[in-house]
């Protein structure tokens, strides 16, 4: 089991998501992730951290979110861990989430729902569309999103 390079624990506030992105990109660069993948790291870690913050704010706002960044040698991994106790069933499959998003965006009639919250699952669909190597482990006591990118040592 590789030792985490850096662990960042932050209060579940939107303002801290940017910090999570900055730290992740900085360490990914140091670990040797290719420059053209750094934007993916930035966006994917941002989406996962935003999702965790949102889940904590609903379920356990006092609990911090954990970002664990590890340089395994041939890979750089970012793990976003939330402890939100989520009684709802698993999020919609990515394809369904994106179809719902496009559908709601097309609603044009004056009494259209102006709710701007995205359909559930869009965050994970974006991560899945960006990152080839991603695992989502959801349980009653929280959810972990583990993403990995190759480093120069692993290519």
């Amino acid at each position, binding site marked *: 089991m590789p030792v985490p390079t850096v662990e960042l624990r932050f209060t579940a506030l*939107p*303002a801290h*998501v*940017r910090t999570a*992105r900055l730290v992740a990109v900085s360490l990914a660069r140091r670990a040797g992730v290719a420059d053209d993948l750094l*934007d993916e790291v*930035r*966006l994917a870690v*941002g*989406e996962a951290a*935003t999702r965790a*913050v*949102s889940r904590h704010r609903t379920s356990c706002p006092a609990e911090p979110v954990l970002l664990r960044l590890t340089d395994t040698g041939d890979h750089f991994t970012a793990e976003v861990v939330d402890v939100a106790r989520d009684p709802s069933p698993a999020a919609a499959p990515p394809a369904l989430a*994106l*179809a719902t*998003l*496009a559908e*709601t*965006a*097309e*609603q*044009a*009639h*004056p*009494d*259209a*729902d*102006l*709710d*701007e*919250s*995205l359909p559930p699952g*869009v*965050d994970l*669909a*974006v991560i899945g*569309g*960006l990152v080839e190597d991603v695992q989502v482990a959801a349980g009653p006591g929280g959810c972990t999103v583990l993403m990995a990118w190759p480093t120069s040592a692993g290519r």
Partner: protein
Amino acid sequence: MDLSLETRTEGDRTVIEVGGEVDVYTAPTLREQIIALVEAGQYHLVVDMERVEFLDSTGLGVLVGGLKRVRAHDGSLALVCTQERILKIFRITGLTKVFPIHGSVADAVAATG
């Protein structure tokens, strides 16, 4: 870098020039700006994203919400974006089919609808 917003009028369009990072923390500011414009009767919006450095799904949600608001008044919301790293999230989410995306503000203003 924080979010920056500047608005100006070009013909019958209102151009919102967005700069910096649009994420879960800053997106509410963009949403308030769009709502204020719609409430002031500006229903044809061009969102210039050429100086945007980061955009996540929260930012997309605000743009989708803006589109719904202007369409409720038979308006339009067009985007100006040529940056690949920003266009990527529109492609992944299929929203390239929902938003008209132009290469310049001039093109967006010249386009009808």
